Structure formats: structure tokens, C-alpha cells
């Protein structure tokens, strides 16, 4: 596995992956749906997969002394590393965001722990659509990316709309009032911290389970592929 990860780093990593980490700076934009920053990491992973496909990486990897399953697991692990780096980069950006805009984000979820949970959902949706499909027919990576974009933006629009609606209707709906005061704000009290950490734990659980299921489907697909 270590060798396969080294291969990913040396032969598959495209400049867009580190370059697109700069999109973490989008969290410094006032009034913006901040989950979009995470989408750009997914975009860079698309470029990585596309370039791997053009480079004949799958055949090269399958000819190495590893199983097909290990090829898939290493790729998914590398994708998770790429995503986790973005996840970690967003933490100082959230702190800066709060310093710059203490009033919150009227365009969606505030820069807070809940945003990190939402970012994990963005990654889960992208991985679930793009990676198993890539290992079924890598030549259709462009189409897969289109479906991933639809899936990711579907989630972003839904979740951000919910947060905006919660802010607007907090006087009328008690649940929205709780969401607004516990999930869509910078955590200042223990109660808010707990609520947001639970949200993050749920996001992490979904991301973890989603990744395991993604690997299983991708391995199953790749076992059937004729290279």
C-alpha cells in the first residue's frame, strides 16, 4: 500500500491538487456558500483521475505485484488524503472568517464546525458517484464528473437553502430557531460546541461509512473490468 501511495504521489498527482487548495481562501469572502470551496478539491481530484486515465495508470498499476483491489484501495486512500488536507486547511480559514465577519454568513452556513460536517458530505457525495464509476469505465470520467457536479451542487443547494430558511423563519419555527442558534453560528458556548461537534461526528461517520461503501463498489467494478 505504501508503494502504491508513493506511486500516486510521484506519477499521478497533478498540479491542480495543491493549487486548488488555494480555494480554501474562499472562506474569507463575505456572504458566500462556503461549501463551494470543498467542491474545488473534488474538481482537482477529477483532474487527477482524468490524467491517470490518459497516462495509462490503471494498466500500469494492475501489472505491478498488487491485486486489483489494492489498486483501488490505494487510489481511494490517496483521494481521502487530498480531501483531508483541504478539510484541515479550512479550519484556520474558519477562525479567520469569524474574525472578519463576526455577524455570520447570510448566504448560507456560517464559518463554523457545522460547515466542516457539510464539507465531509460534499466529499462523500463526490466519492460515491465518481470513484466506483471510474473503476467501471474510466473512459467516461467526463460524464461521471458531470453527474458528480450535479450531486455535489444538489447537496450544497439543499443544505445552504435549509440554513438560509432556518435564519429567515427562526421566529416562526422552533426547530429553525434551534438550528440557527446551535448549528449556524460560531460556537461560543458549551451547548453550541456540543451540538456542532455532534454534527461533525455525524458528518465524519457518513464520510467514513460512505468511503467504505465506495471502496467496495469500486473494487467490485474493477474486478469485472477487462484491461
Amino acid at each position, binding site marked *: 500500500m505504501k508503494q502504491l501511495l508513493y*506511486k500516486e504521489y*510521484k*506519477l499521478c498527482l497533478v498540479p491542480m491538487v495543491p493549487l486548488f487548495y488555494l480555494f480554501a481562501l474562499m472562506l474569507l469572502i463575505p456572504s458566500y456558500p462556503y461549501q463551494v470551496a470543498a467542491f474545488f478539491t473534488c474538481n482537482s481530484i477529477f483532474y487527477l483521475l482524468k490524467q491517470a486515465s490518459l497516462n*495509462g495508470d490503471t494498466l500500469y498499476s494492475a*501489472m*505491478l505485484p498488487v491485486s486489483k483491489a489494492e489498486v483501488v484501495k490505494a487510489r481511494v486512500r490517496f483521494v481521502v488524503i487530498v480531501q483531508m488536507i483541504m478539510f484541515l486547511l479550512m479550519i484556520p480559514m474558519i477562525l479567520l472568517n469569524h474574525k472578519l465577519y463576526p455577524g455570520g454568513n447570510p448566504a448560507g452556513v456560517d464559518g463554523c464546525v457545522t460547515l466542516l460536517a457539510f464539507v465531509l458530505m460534499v466529499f462523500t457525495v463526490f466519492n460515491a458517484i465518481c470513484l466506483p464509476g471510474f473503476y467501471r469505465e474510466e473512459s467516461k470520467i467526463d460524464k461521471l464528473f458531470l453527474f458528480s457536479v450535479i450531486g455535489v451542487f444538489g447537496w450544497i443547494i439543499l443544505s445552504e437553502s435549509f440554513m438560509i430558511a432556518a435564519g429567515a423563519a427562526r421566529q416562526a419555527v422552533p426547530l429553525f430557531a434551534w438550528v440557527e442558534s446551535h448549528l449556524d453560528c460560531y460556537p461560543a458556548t458549551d451547548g453550541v460546541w456540543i451540538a456542532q461537534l455532534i454534527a461533525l461526528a455525524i458528518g465524519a461517520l457518513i464520510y467514513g461509512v460512505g468511503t467504505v461503501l465506495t471502496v467496495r463498489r469500486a473494487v467490485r467494478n474493477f474486478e469485472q473490468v477487462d*484491461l
Partner: protein
Amino acid sequence: MALLDVRELEKRYPTFTLDKVSFSLEPGYIMGFIGRNGAGKTTTMKAMLNLIHRDGGQVYINGRSFFENERACKEEIGFVMGEFDCYKNATLQKITDVTRRFYPDWDEQAYESYLSRFALEEGKKIKELSAGMRVKYALALALSHNAKLLILDEPTSGLDPVSRDDLLDVFRSVIEDGSRSILFSTHIISDLEKCADYITYIKGGKVLSSTDVISFREGYRLVSGDREHLEVRRPKLIGCKEHAFGFTGLIRAQDAGAFAACKIAPADLESIMIYTEQEDGHETASL
């Protein structure tokens, strides 16, 4: 014990079936894998290495099931599928740096000697190499990790005659200690004449013959004669070519008696392949 034992390997496509392909190769020998384009040579090799999903059959490397011990078996195999065609913008140095990490028995000295022998420069990118040089690079990688078994799909195509001859010398030196073997497919039958000990001949997804080269050749005869000798003997001809003065054809050695009136000569591998491909329906080619 056979170094390579392929048993009833099957792969079904809508328009082609690899039909229970079986053959084996002992250590210390070179086996030529021959057949027309589309006969199933590459499909067999890929199915053997799990690169395509097989529908049945088993492959044993040194007595171990390949599919149950994929990693360990692959460490003992050097596989070349024509020219190295991956990562065209990467240098040889970078690709080798990654590849060598997968093989515990990587032999840096051997690798450097092959680079030198094949006149490969590590600083060059794949896209800067000619097709022949890419084949040589693939071979250098395959030969540098002390593989017990080399599986080479058309390794000599794209090489000039001098390089081909040099490569055949490399093949002979690889197997001379008696512990390693080479299976290689080729359309250049003269290469097999020079170095193969065994021949496996595949046609339409089925193995027609898998035996040593001498027995394979001894099983056939080339005959030539006048036209009047042809008609009554046509059913015994595997294939034939008619020309203005008569015919030339291939027969099985046991049928030689029926052609006593004709000129009979030993058959070469290329003729056996050419005439055998005409066998269905005894079609003839007129010159």
C-alpha cells in the same frame, strides 16, 4: 514442476471465446506463443495475469495458484505488453524509481546494464523515445527484478533486426541457469526459429498444439508437385497454394506416404502457420 501451468483458461466475449486454453512450461525453456491476429494470444496472456476477468480455468506459477497468490506470483513474473506506453511526460528515472519499490528482488546492477545495453537514457521522457526504445525500456524493467517467468507479448515487434537479434541473445542468457523461463508471443516466426524450445499454437481461441519445436516441425511436411497430383490428394492437404506449375502445400507427417510422387521437404514454423490457417474447408490460394 512446471514454472507455468495454464489449465482450461476460458474467456467469453460476444464474438470470441477463449476455449479452455491449456499449456505448461518447465523452468529453463523459451516457449513461443503463435497464432494469427485475433487468435487469442493477448487475451490469454491478460487472462493469465488477471488483467481481464476470466470465465474459468486456473493458472499456476511455480505450483501456486496465481489467482489466490496474485501478489507473490506477480513478483516472480516480468510482463511486457509491447512498448511501454504509460506516463508519457515522465522520465524513465521517475518511473523506475516507483517501479523498483514494488519488487523486493530488484537488481539495480542488472537494470543499469540493460539501460546501457539498450542505449536508454534515464533522463529522457517516455514521449521522447521511439517505439522500439519504449519496448526496450519495458523489457529492461521486466528483466531487472529477477523474475522467474517472463511473459512477453510481441516484444520484438518494432525493433530493428540488430536489436531483435541482441534481444534474443538476452533471452537465451536469461534462461541459461535453468531456473527461469520465457513465454513470448510474436508474429516474427524467424525469431522463434532462433530461440524457442517449445511452441504453443493458438487458433480461434483454441490451442491447436503445444509441444517442443522439433516435434512440432516433425509433425508436418511441405509437399510440392504437379497439378495432376493435386486433385486426388487434396483432402490430405492441410493447406495449399496453387501456381502455374503445380502446387505447394502442407501435410501431416503421417500422410507423407500418399505424396510419394511429390517432392517432400521438412516444414518450417512459418509455413506450418500459414498453411494451417487455411485448414478450414481446405481453401487454397492461387498465385
